[in-house]
C-alpha cells in the first residue's frame, strides 16, 4: 500500500518534468529556425547589398541567408491585400530585406551580432523574430519552478506519510524493541530494520513511478502515431532520459531512508522500557 502511495505521489512531479522536457525540446527546435530580419535603407545600392550579403556569409553564427528584394516583397503583399488598399498606395513602401537564421541560442552572441549589423552602412533596422519564444521559455521556466515547488511539497508529504507508517511499525514491534533494549541492543541496531523498510518502500515506490511514466509515454505515443497517420504530423512524445529514472529511484529511496531514520530514532528514543 505504502509503495503505491509513494509511486503515485512521485508520479505527479515526474509527469510535470516529462511535460517540461518535451515542451523545452519543442521550443528549442522552433528557436533554431527563428529568423532575424534585416531591413535595408530604401536608398541602398546594389554594391552595398552585395557587401552586406558577403558580411553575413562570413559570419559563423549565421546558418541560412535569404534575400528578399523589395519588388518581390511588394508583389507578395499586394497579393495578400485587397485591391482597394493596394491601389491607394502609390509607391512601394517596403525595403529590401535579408532574413537569416542562426546557429546559436546564446542571447549575448545574438545581441552582439545585432549590434554589428546595426553598424553596417545600408542597414536600416534589425529585428529578432523570436520574442514569443522568449515568452514561451519564461512560461516554461515558471512552470518548471512550480513543478519543483509542488515536488518539494509532495516530498514533505511523503516524509510525513512514510515517517508515520514507520512510527506505527515501531509501536507494533514495541515488545521486541523493549526486549532488545533490555538485553543490550543499541538504538542504531534497533533502528536498522526500520530503515531497511523505509529504503524498500522508496525502491518499490520509485519502480511504480517509473512504470506509470513509461506506460503513459507508450500509451500517448501509440495515440500520437495514430493521429500522425491521419493528420500527417510526426509529433512523438519524448521519454525522459534513463538517468532521470535513476534519479527518481534514488530520490524515492532517500526519502524512505530519511523519513524512516527520523521516525524510528524518535520513536525508539521515546520508548520507555520496563515500566
Amino acid at each position, binding site marked *: 500500500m505504502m509503495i503505491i502511495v509513494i509511486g503515485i505521489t512521485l508520479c505527479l512531479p515526474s509527469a510535470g518534468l516529462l511535460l517540461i522536457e518535451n515542451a523545452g525540446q519543442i521550443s528549442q527546435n522552433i528557436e533554431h529556425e527563428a529568423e532575424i530580419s534585416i531591413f535595408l535603407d530604401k536608398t541602398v545600392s546594389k554594391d552595398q547589398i552585395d557587401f552586406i550579403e558577403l558580411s553575413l556569409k562570413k559570419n559563423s553564427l549565421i546558418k541560412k541567408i535569404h534575400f528578399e528584394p523589395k519588388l518581390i516583397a511588394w508583389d507578395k503583399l499586394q497579393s495578400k491585400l485587397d485591391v482597394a488598399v493596394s491601389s491607394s498606395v502609390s509607391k512601394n513602401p517596403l525595403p529590401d530585406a535579408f532574413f537569416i537564421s542562426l546557429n546559436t541560442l546564446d542571447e549575448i552572441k545574438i545581441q552582439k551580432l545585432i549590434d554589428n549589423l546595426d553598424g553596417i552602412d545600408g542597414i536600416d533596422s534589425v529585428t529578432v523574430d523570436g520574442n514569443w519564444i522568449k515568452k514561451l521559455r519564461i512560461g516554461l521556466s515558471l512552470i518548471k519552478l512550480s513543478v519543483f515547488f509542488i515536488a518539494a511539497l509532495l516530498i514533505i508529504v511523503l516524509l510525513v506519510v512514510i515517517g508515520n507508517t514507520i512510527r506505527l511499525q515501531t509501536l507494533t514491534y514495541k*515488545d*521486541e524493541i*523493549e*526486549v*532488545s*533494549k*533490555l*538485553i*543490550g*541492543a*543499541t538504538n542504531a*541496531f534497533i533502528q536498522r530494520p526500520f530503515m531497511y523498510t523505509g529504503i524498500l518502500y522508496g525502491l518499490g515506490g520509485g519502480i511504480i513511478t517509473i512504470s506509470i511514466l513509461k506506460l503513459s509515454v507508450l500509451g500517448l505515443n501509440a495515440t500520437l502515431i495514430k493521429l500522425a497517420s491521419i493528420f500527417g504530423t510526426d509529433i512523438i512524445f519524448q521519454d525522459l532520459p534513463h538517468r532521470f529514472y535513476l534519479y527518481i529511484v534514488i530520490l524515492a529511496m532517500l526519502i524512505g531512508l530519511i523519513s524512516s531514520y527520523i521516525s524510528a530514532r524518535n520513536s525508539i528514543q521515546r520508548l520507555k*522500557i*520496563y515500566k
Partner: protein
Amino acid sequence: MITFEKVYKSYPGSPEVLQNINLEILSGELVFVTGPSGAGKTTLLKLISAIEKPSSGSIIFESQNLSRIKDTEIPILRRRFGMIFQDHKLLYDRNCFENVALPLEINNMSISDMNRRVRAALDKVDLLKKEKMMPITLSGGEQQRLAIARAIVSRPSILIADEPTANLDKEYAEEIMNIFYSFQQVGVTVIISTHELPSTKINFKRLQLNGGSIQNLIGHVQLPA
C-alpha cells in the same frame, strides 16, 4: 563488584522509592532482595542494570559509576548482565531458538557459534527438544526457563531476576531456583528479587527492603534445606 553509596531514587510527583541505600554485592554472590510490594525491589534492580539512574548517590560497577554513565555506554553494560523478568518478556512471534539467539544477534555473533551457544543454553534449561516450538505453547515454568536460557546464552557475569517465580506454582518455582543456584555455583553473581525467601542449601546474602529503605542486610545465611 557492585557498590551502592547513599543512593536515593525518586520519581517526579511521588515520594522517594529508595532512600539512603548502602550495600556491596561481591562477585559470585547469591543475593535475595526481599520485601513486600512497593518496597523498591524492582527499582533497585533497575538501578543495577542502568534502566534507571539514581536521583543521588553513586552506584559503582567494576569501577564504572552507573550514576554518570552515558546513554551510549548503557547497551554495552547491559550485555554483561543476564536479565530475567517476572513476565518473561519473550517474543511470541519467534520460536524458542530465535528468542534465545537474540542477545547473540545483537553481539553480531557468527551463525555457527550462535547455533552452538543457543543449543547449549537450551540444553542447560532442558528445552533443547522444544527449540522449534513457539513460546506460547510452553507452560509458565518452561517460559521462565526459556527466559533464563536467553539471559545466560551470552555468558554474563551477573544474572538479575525480578520475581522470577511470582507466577509459578511451587514445583516450577523450585525448578527455576535450582537453575539459578547452579549458575551461582560456577561463579556467576545472581541477584534475585522475591517476596519470600526460597529454601536453599547455598550461602546467600539477604537484602530486606521496606518502604524504600534497607530494613535488614544479612550476609552469608544458610537456610536448612
